[in-house]
């Protein structure tokens, strides 16, 4: 079996494993099956996807040649995001066992089956080269996510999941409308074929409407301001493992889909000209950066604070996109990767605290620096990465973003990026101050350090943050290849 023929199995293995998992009773077997499936999927992705940096991989389902059949089409942009998603899932699974046992004590077979469906849905979106296939996998992963979020122990998790369902379905239906308009005008659903056929028909209002619908639809899934309202509640009240997984993957894949449509299907020389897309995205990005960081500074619940911080970080990514240049797109992809590392590490640290203490409130963090030193140090180091201290991964992506802004002479953007980084210092410092500079109040029980199973994955991610902050060849190389694949115009035949 050649590399190309192995590629779709990184989507199929979790899908089939979820079927097996749904029927398994108890607590150990569902987790074990999920662990095996996730690691297999990550290994298959690691074996097959790096080849996409040189040549576009194409796999035709049912051996029907595209554009008649559905194909998976992987180039450097795809491969980068898919490797990230599979890798994050593989790191999060060993962390999951203890946390899920405490927060979701019953019916874990169904819980892990939903997780595997969400994972295979996200990987399917990333690898697919057919527009409607992207919609179907988007709905698969979204429905599984709604189910996962509703497992939270607080009853507000149900409300958060319901509101996310309403907003997410509207967003996905907008994407469907956009795809429908494109199909009406060109007669094809294959992304590469659409890119070829669109230039003749693209000056019609149908195609312009399609562009608008697709951007708004994916903007909702991406949590771009002002369509971010579902994110804080969903991340806060979901089980910790679900937040750990979603924070590193869901919004990144949505950003990838938007980029794929805006750059590959609608060529950038048209999509940024017919709509004032660069200006609009820049304004929304800056608003997101400010609003997210500002509100995060005042949140008493740490998970909620990190959720608003995620909204701000999405703003950074969209800012990189709005500066339509190789450096700008590289910065966006770099931040996509690095933010996944940072945020997942932060949420893992908070999840570990929740496992030991039972709550994620700032007042329950007091004095933990002494009793849970490893956990809080991991939080502090990952927090340094969010702030953008040199030697961390966060610094690298902000450096590229500032470079991209300077290349276009946008000094005020540089100032804005620096101001929001200062805000990040404020909200990370609140936690550090509570943990190390305040005493644990007497009425709260003393807690010891967390078990190793929770600490090791967290520290692996923290170490990766520093590794990718010092040796940037892999991430910058991958991000640059991804940006060039998108801006180079069209998917390679």
């Amino acid at each position, binding site marked *: 079996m050649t590399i190309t023929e192995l590629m779709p199995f990184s989507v199929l293995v979790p899908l089939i494993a979820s079927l097996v998992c749904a029927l398994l009773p108890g607590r150990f077997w569902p987790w074990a099956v999920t662990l095996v499936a996730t690691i297999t999927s990550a290994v298959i992705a690691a074996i097959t996807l790096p080849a996409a940096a040189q040549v576009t991989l194409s796999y035709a389902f049912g051996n029907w040649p595209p554009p008649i059949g559905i194909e998976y089409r992987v180039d450097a942009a795809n491969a980068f995001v898919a490797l990230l998603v599979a890798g994050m899932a593989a790191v999060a699974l060993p962390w999951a066992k203890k946390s899920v046992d405490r927060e979701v004590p019953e019916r874990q077979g169904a819980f892990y089956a939903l997780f595997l469906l969400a994972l295979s849905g996200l990987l399917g979106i990333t690898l697919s080269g057919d527009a*409607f296939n992207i*919609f*179907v996998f988007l*709905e698969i992963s979204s*429905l599984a996510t*709604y*189910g996962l979020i*509703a497992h939270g122990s*607080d*009853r*507000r998790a*149900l*409300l958060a*999941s*319901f*509101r996310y*369902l*309403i907003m997410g*379905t*509207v967003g996905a*239906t907008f994407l*469907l*409308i956009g795809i*429908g308009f494109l*199909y*009406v005008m060109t007669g094809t659903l294959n992304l590469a074929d659409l890119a070829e056929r669109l230039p003749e028909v693209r000056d019609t209002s149908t195609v312009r409407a399609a562009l608008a619908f697709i951007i708004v639809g994916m903007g909702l899934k991406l949590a771009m301001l002002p369509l971010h309202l579902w994110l*804080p509640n969903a991340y*806060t009240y979901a089980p910790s493992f679900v937040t750990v997984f979603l924070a590193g993957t869901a919004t990144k894949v949505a950003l990838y889909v938007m980029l794929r449509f805006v750059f590959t299907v609608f060529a950038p020389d048209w999509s940024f000209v017919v709509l004032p897309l660069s200006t609009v995205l820049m304004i929304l990005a800056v608003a997101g950066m400010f609003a997210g960081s500002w*509100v995060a500074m*005042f*949140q*008493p*619940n740490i998970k*909620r604070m990190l959720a608003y911080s995620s909204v701000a970080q999405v703003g950074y990514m969209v800012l990189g996109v709005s500066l339509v240049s190789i450096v700008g797109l590289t910065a966006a992809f770099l931040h996509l990767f690095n933010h996944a590392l940072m945020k997942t590490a932060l949420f893992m640290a908070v999840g570990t605290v929740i496992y030991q203490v039972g709550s994620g*409130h700032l007042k329950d963090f007091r004095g933990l620096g002494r009793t849970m030193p490893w956990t809080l140090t991991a939080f502090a180091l990952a927090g340094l990465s969010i702030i953008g201290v040199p030697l961390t991964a966060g610094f690298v992506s902000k450096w590229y973003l500032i470079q991209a802004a300077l290349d276009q002479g946008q000094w005020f953007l540089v100032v804005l990026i620096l101001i929001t980084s200062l805000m990040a210092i404020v909200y990370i410092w609140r936690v550090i101050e509570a943990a190390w500079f305040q005493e644990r109040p007497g009425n709260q029980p003393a807690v010891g350090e967390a078990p190793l199973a929770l600490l090791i994955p967290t520290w692996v991610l923290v170490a990766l943050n520093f590794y990718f902050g010092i040796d940037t060849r892999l991430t910058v190389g991958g991000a640059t290849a991804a940006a060039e694949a998108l801006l180079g115009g069209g998917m390679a035949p």
Partner: protein
Amino acid sequence: MMTVLSFFNYWIVVVLMMIGFYCVIARGNMVKKVMGLNLFQTSVFILFISAGKIVGGSTPIVREGVELYSNPLPHVLILTAIVVGVATTAVGLALTVRINEAYGSIEDDHLGDEDDGDEQ
């Protein structure tokens, strides 16, 4: 006038889409929101299928004596989308039942505000 009438399908799409979208955002009752979502999705289905009809084409089933068939691909796409819609409705209604049990009401507007002050 005839041009307007010949696009009757698409007028219905617009009307249904707006009614559905209005129900989603203007009604607080959760069951009504889910129904609005269904209307919204149904309008998209009609849009796709109307686009698949070819002038002079008959139904896309192979049989003798027919030369021009309508496009079968939109029908397949909409079947998939209908299944997605059914699944979304099922999840939405299940969440509504659970929320009713947890909160005692399904009027969405102010639920969750009185829970312990966690948000800003």
